[in-house]
């Protein structure tokens, strides 16, 4: 069964402030991979707010220890099915100059089932605009492609990030399987 879910859930603002080309800014995101039981209805197309955020939701929290604003994204897969989320996160350029962003430094921080490999495939993609290498890939819970090429956002433009997810059919339902740190980085303007 192929489940294609397209969601627009939350606009997350990228804190890109610097005007100097040598400055890079890293926005930390933290992605939980959860599981759920298969839904009875097949969602296709450009649906938004599907099942009240069952498949992807995001919030942010402030870490007083470091002063970081950390965006926390929960993506939920269905064991045994392929889930494509085409609008998981939006990253917008709030400044009056173009900025280049990329996804980088994909790393696994928490594996809630260390003895099993349940997250078989996860790709976080730049859906729009796209770049040459437009996705980071996690395969069998190890990051194999940790950086995308940069994309340029015009003033006011938002980049849309999507997720493709394959959860092993043996994974338990309604559990958090793993958590990844994925940075969205404003890179120096080329």
């Amino acid at each position, binding site marked *: 069964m192929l489940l294609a879910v397209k969601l627009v859930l939350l606009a997350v603002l990228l804190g890109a402030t610097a005007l100097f080309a040598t400055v890079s800014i890293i926005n930390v995101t933290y992605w939980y991979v959860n599981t759920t039981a298969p839904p009875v209805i097949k969602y296709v197309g450009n649906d938004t707010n599907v099942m009240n955020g069952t498949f992807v939701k995001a919030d942010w*929290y402030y870490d007083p220890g470091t002063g970081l604003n950390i965006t926390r994204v929960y993506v939920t897969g269905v064991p045994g099915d392929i889930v494509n989320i085409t609008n998981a996160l939006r990253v917008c350029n709030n400044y009056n100059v173009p900025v280049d962003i990329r996804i980088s430094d994909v790393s696994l921080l928490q594996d809630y089932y260390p003895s099993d490999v349940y997250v078989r495939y996860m790709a976080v993609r730049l859906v729009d605009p796209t770049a040459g290498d437009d996705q980071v890939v996690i395969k069998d819970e190890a990051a194999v492609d940790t950086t995308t090429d940069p994309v340029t956002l015009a003033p006011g433009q938002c980049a849309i990030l999507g997720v493709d997810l394959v959860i092993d059919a043996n994974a338990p339902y309604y559990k958090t399987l793993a958590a990844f740190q994925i940075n969205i980085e404003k890179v120096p303007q080329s």
Partner: protein
Amino acid sequence: MMRREQVIRTSLFFLPTLVFIIALTAPGGEYAFRTGPLAEVSIGQTPQYVGVDGKALYLYSSPYAPWQYPGAVVVKVFYPTTVLVFSTCGAVAASSVGGQPGAYPLDVVIPPGFQGDCWVNFTHPSGWRDAVLFRVKLIDWYPGAVERAVVTLNGTGWQFVQVGRDGMLYIWERPMAKSPVAGCVFVYNKSVLLAEAQPYREAAPNVIPPVVVPSDAGDVRHGVFVRLAGVSELYVYEAPCAALKKLEVPIPPPLVAKMGVVLPTPTGPVFDAPQAIKSTLYRSELRSINYSEAAARVYRLYMYTYNTPVGLWGAVLRYNFALATLLTAEISLFKPAGELERAGDVWIYRVGNVTYWIHGPQPHRVCEPPCGVPTGWQSPVYIVADPTGEWRGWPQIISVKREVLQPWRP
């Protein structure tokens, strides 16, 4: 009948010869025909705590050591002769002064524990005499010190107290108060304590506040051990330091603990543990100190452990984290084993018969949701390990006062 020639001869020869012989044999030699006193005794330089009343000096004596008053009495001798000196309490070492005309300052030393009147008599065979009176009072004060700090402590068990050159008062390496007197003589419970002199220097330059660690050169801190049982007073005097032979203290035990942070990597979480890159052993008079630096992926650890002769040992940890936007699920600055307990402002681990007392940031925590890896210099982690079971934590400093010794009058 003396003839006229004999009278003339006597007048011309014998009388001048007699005068010459008298001049030669007189105690004042060629000064025999000078008028005025043979010598003069006066009061010389005295510290501000000495009272002077004519030729009487109001002095102090101490139970701890002889009290020296250098140059307190000056004898001015006007003739090339010596004046005999005798004191009734052994306060003056010299038995005579003089020889040539001039001023001779006398060093006065009041023996420990002396109390009462003490005469210093100056005599000369010619019959000249003079005297100075010392009225001596015995006080509980280290000799020679003008001022002292009175530190009132409330605690239990052995405490390691240090005073830095700037007067900062450390207890088990942790700065706790400021002493108005920086010195190296400590008196506690009517005893002068054995003190160590250990230099400290900055481990990394240009850090504010500075990160100081034991070294072989630098700013010296003087440290002593006191055994507290309730409220008691520790006195700190600025006085010449006593040289002390180094005690044989075994090297500190290794710090067995989980130290580091969990870091995300593409293949999974790793625990970023420190790798020692430098280690130096220092021996002070009272402790053996092992200073080491260790490097890890996202931090550098500066730490020293020290062993003491009183059964306890301690450590100080300074973490300097790089600026990294990495998330973590566990921050373990120090976790030997067991469960972390909070008792007042300290953290406690109990591992077997050893109790670890920790002051500083939370030594161990699990981040749920994940938190960012710490950045920059972390507050110091002060550790005291107690295998004796008698220690009850850092003492309370009730007060620190400055006292100045004033002259006394009956």
